[in-house]
């Protein structure tokens, strides 16, 4: 299978939430009861039963009018994926040929490292099962030659799914066409995310969208520096003790000198 890209052209989104419903439908996920918080954004955030979400945001346009921004939020399927770096369970978070980062919740132990290592805070914890859940890019559909459910359901052409090069070209063309503050988001981040946005506004305008997403240097310090050092420390201690025992030997008390009285 070729490497794929999911192009999300936010200029076309009408916030119909077909993607949200299709995702729930395909994955057999229940609705989450919520309360009216004075916004159409519902549920309030991604959760263990909601892998994709339309974010509603009101901004003031240059002419003073109120403008609505919609953003289809979900896992970005990063090439340099923080969740994969942090996960302690072998084979729990894996990558498919098309580029999906798949979290196998049946293997998850609920440590929540992936949530903290993810620059977008995507993986979500379910207290009932004590496991993490996130968008898996419908890797099961892709394996059968189908496109992800959200892309299939999108009626406006906001979500498009196809081969990497074609989608990147299309994204660049579309951003140019829109002009102004429009830009392509994702292809240059984290060695290339597999979900790429065409944003109509500058990235900083969007809520909960990092302008320059990066895996925290603390994660590198943890996994690439201190983790090997802890093994080095253990083996070093073991080696030093073995050498000492072989060369110097144990320090034994002297019993032979007899029972002289100690002062």
């Amino acid at each position: 299978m070729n490497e794929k890209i999911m192009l999300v052209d936010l200029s076309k989104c009408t916030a119909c939430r077909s993607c949200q419903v299709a995702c729930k439908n395909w994955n057999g996920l229940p609705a989450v009861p919520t309360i009216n918080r004075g916004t159409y954004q519902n549920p309030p955030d991604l959760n263990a039963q909601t892998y994709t979400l339309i974010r509603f945001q009101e901004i003031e346009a240059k002419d003073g009018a109120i403008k609505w921004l919609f953003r289809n939020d979900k896992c970005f399927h990063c090439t340099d994926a923080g969740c994969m770096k942090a996960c302690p369970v072998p084979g729990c978070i894996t990558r498919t040929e098309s580029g999906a980062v798949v979290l196998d919740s049946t293997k998850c132990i609920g440590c929540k490292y992936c949530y903290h290592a993810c620059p977008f805070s995507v993986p979500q914890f379910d207290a009932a099962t004590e496991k993490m859940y996130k968008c898996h890019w419908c890797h099961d559909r892709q394996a059968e030659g189908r496109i992800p459910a959200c892309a299939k359901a999108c009626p406006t052409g906001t979500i498009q799914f196809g081969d990497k090069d074609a989608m990147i070209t299309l994204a660049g063309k579309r951003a140019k066409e829109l002009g102004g503050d429009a830009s392509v988001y994702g292809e240059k981040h984290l060695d290339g995310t597999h979900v790429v946005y065409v944003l109509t506004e500058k990235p900083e305008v969007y809520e909960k969208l990092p302008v320059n997403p990066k895996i925290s240097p603390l994660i590198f310090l943890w996994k690439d520096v201190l983790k090997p050092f802890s093994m080095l420390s253990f083996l070093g201690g073991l080696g030093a003790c073995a050498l000492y025992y072989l060369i110097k030997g144990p320090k034994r008390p002297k019993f032979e000198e007899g029972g002289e009285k100690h002062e």
Partner: protein
Amino acid sequence: MSSTVKNSNYELIDVTTPFERLVHLAFAGSCIMLFISGFALMFHTLSFISTVFGGLYVTKYVHNFSGLLFAVSGLFAVVIWFKEGAIFDADDIKWFMKGGGYLWTKEGIPPQGRFNAGQKMYFVLKASTWALMSVTGIIMWFPYFFGKEITIFCYPLHALGVASLAGAVVVHGFLGSLGNPGTIQAMITGKCTRAWAKLQHAKWLKEYDEKHSK
């Protein structure tokens, strides 16, 4: 062998209290469990270790609850040994200058109290990492309560604790057993021989004799 003859080298002397041994057992036992389960969780290549606990999911809980025992027993350890473990004197400096008699010389080692300078150093390391590991560990256990910004700092700090502790724990275990025969009994039965005390903790033995002579 008349092991109980007074003032003979074979005389058995009480060197630790039962409470000290209980605290040591809980602290050391939980620490070893934490290392085994922690290494299984840290290295994919060592995750096979988790099989003995029943998989990584259970291993996480073994780690969490061993951590609780570690935090509680560590508190007792710090309190009961602080006076003997954290205060260094001139003899301790001399001990360090001679490498404790373990490395390049065996001569001129100043007589040591119930804890020698190396053990004191280990106590200081252990006390500080006890605090570090307990605090970062509890935050990592309940990250949503503390928030992402705080939790993400705890990951490298927790690993820093492992890196500074792993080698020291191995060396401590070695010096307390194979390296110095007669030592491990102090933490099991609580008794040592007069000959051992003379060799390892002469200053303490002197105090002991003064206290026990009428």
